């Protein structure tokens, strides 16, 4: 079981309130991702759940029991750190065994679990090496191994992939997702990368300045962002925001349209603009277009084969059913 409830949890460092009182519910078996820009309090929130930081006020419940004042070890959670935090003086085997050793588990049981974890994580050949002799991806797998042998109520991941190179990151992303499907254990995952959030999460929690901006499934956040911040944060490339006259036509302060919901043609569209930089990704082309009133530059996602050159004049048409409307407070209208 791994149900975590935060009730009016608040955290202040001295006079600085990093997390104003917030409520959050994480259901058993859920993969929850905390996402937000640097300094939004997502790591602090995770550390509060872990018990590595004390709450200033509020209650944290794990499986219905008050865990607010429990030390980290007693919460039954396992954590994977950004820096892996392996014990450099111990072999991989000893690293993975450490939590079981601390729990005074029998040697037999330890060996059994180490072998199972090593097999699942492709570490069998590396059990006698030191962390220093492993690659970044292998180290991360050792850190995960150390977490799974404890059979925790929930896994906490603190930006586990940000030290890996891009290709490895995609691979590890899938491995962690697969692990979640296999173990069906609650996972709480912190990242600043919205792609990781979108691809892995059952539920995304978008944070800004310690405040939860929106909680929802990836597609919910994509389709119906609650406010301008979430609209701009979820989705890549970013949503285009248009203000002024164009927005007023829709009765809104700001309207938003995602780059993939704009059609490009040579003439006859709703807006005219000049092509700036075009980024060719092969499958898609991201075109930055200047000269659209109320939005400069506007990003458009076009077909990979589209051929436009710098300085060309193009015509754009937004799909009317995909226009997001926001009021003067930045909140979604209807």
């Amino acid at each position, binding site marked *: 079981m791994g149900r975590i409830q935060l009730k009016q949890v608040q955290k202040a460092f001295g006079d600085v309130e990093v997390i104003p009182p917030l409520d959050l519910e994480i259901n058993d078996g859920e993969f929850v991702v905390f996402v937000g820009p640097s300094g939004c309090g997502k790591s602090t929130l995770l550390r509060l759940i*872990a018990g*590595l930081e004390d709450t200033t006020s509020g209650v944290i419940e794990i499986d219905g029991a008050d865990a607010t004042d429990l*030390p*980290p*070890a007693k919460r039954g*959670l*396992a*954590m994977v*750190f*950004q*820096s892996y*935090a*392996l*014990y*450099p*003086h111990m072999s991989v085997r000893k690293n993975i065994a*450490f*939590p079981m050793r*601390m*729990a005074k588990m029998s040697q037999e049981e330890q060996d059994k679990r180490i072998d199972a974890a090593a097999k699942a994580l492709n570490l069998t050949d590396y059990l006698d090496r030191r962390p220093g002799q492993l690659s970044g991806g292998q180290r991360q797998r050792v850190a995960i191994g*150390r977490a799974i042998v*404890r059979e925790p109520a929930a896994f906490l991941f603190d930006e586990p992939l940000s030290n890996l190179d891009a290709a490895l990151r995609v691979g590890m992303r899938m491995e962690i997702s697969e692990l979640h499907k296999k173990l069906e254990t609650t996972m709480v995952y912190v990242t600043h990368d919205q792609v990781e959030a979108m691809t892995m999460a059952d539920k995304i929690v978008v944070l800004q300045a310690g405040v939860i901006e929106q909680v929802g499934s990836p597609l919910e956040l994509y389709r119906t962002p609650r406010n301008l911040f979430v609209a701009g944060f979820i989705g890549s490339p970013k949503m285009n925001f248009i203000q002024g006259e164009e927005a007023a036509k829709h009765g809104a302060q700001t309207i938003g349209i995602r780059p993939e919901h704009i059609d490009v043609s040579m003439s006859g569209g709703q807006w005219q603009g000049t092509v700036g930089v075009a980024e060719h990704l092969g499958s898609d082309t991201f075109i930055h277009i200047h000269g659209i009133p109320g939005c400069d530059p506007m990003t458009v996602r076009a077909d990979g084969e589209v051929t436009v050159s710098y300085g060309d004049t193009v015509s754009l048409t937004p799909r009317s059913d995909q226009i997001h409307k926001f009021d003067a407070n930045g909140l979604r209208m209807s």
Partner: protein
Amino acid sequence: MARAVSNGKKIANTAIAGTVGFLMFFPILWILILSFKTEEDAIRAPLEILFSSGWTMDSFAAVQARSDYFKHFMNSVTISVGSTFLGLLIAIPAAWAMAFVPAKRTKDVLMWMLSTKMLPPVGVLIPIYLIFRDFGLLDTRIGLTFVLMMINLPIIIWMLYTYFKEIPGEILEAARMDGASLREEVIYVLTPMAIPGMASTVLLNIILAWNEAFWTLNLTAAKAAPLTAFIASYSSPEGLFYAKLSAASIMAIAPILIMGWFSQKQLVRGLTFGAVK
């Protein structure tokens, strides 16, 4: 960044470095040479000493006959090792607290501790002497161990602090998440990771305590006198006995020199105060 250095430059650099090294080593070499001469030879002109006099062990024999080398040696060992380990007992918790649970004033406390090393020791000689006299600590090994511990404590704490600082906090947090108590965290994670640093701290402090002369000369007479006092006793009002003084010096510095030689690697790390990873 690798820079291309011409062969000529390399040879010149090596020659300069060799010369400087030799100049620094020369006094010790000269003491070594003098210690194997008779008193008459030892006061002759340098070239005569080198080329036209015989070699003898007489000075060592004379020194050993006149004073009990072994007693002084044991005093030195007791005082330097004792003060270092006593210092560690205080320094480990202190450095631990400052490295892992720093408070607002931690940096100030560290600077204040270092500043005590800038005070000329003679400034506190009289109060300490009087305290020693009143507590019956004059010329005792316990008193000297205590004073040398205090003298070197700032350095021990600074060194351990910098070593502990190098240990990433996340690793200790990982241990906490893995269920380790504070005691287990210190025994299984912190200490093994800090052992190289602790070793060089111990070595450096033993050397500093061994060589410390000001307090040892002023607070001891006969019973607790370590090797520094033993050397000093050969520069006496009866006149200078170069050969015997040299022999005594060699006997006093040999143990620490040998120890230093074998532990060079640790020491270099210690002296860079943890700056080199």
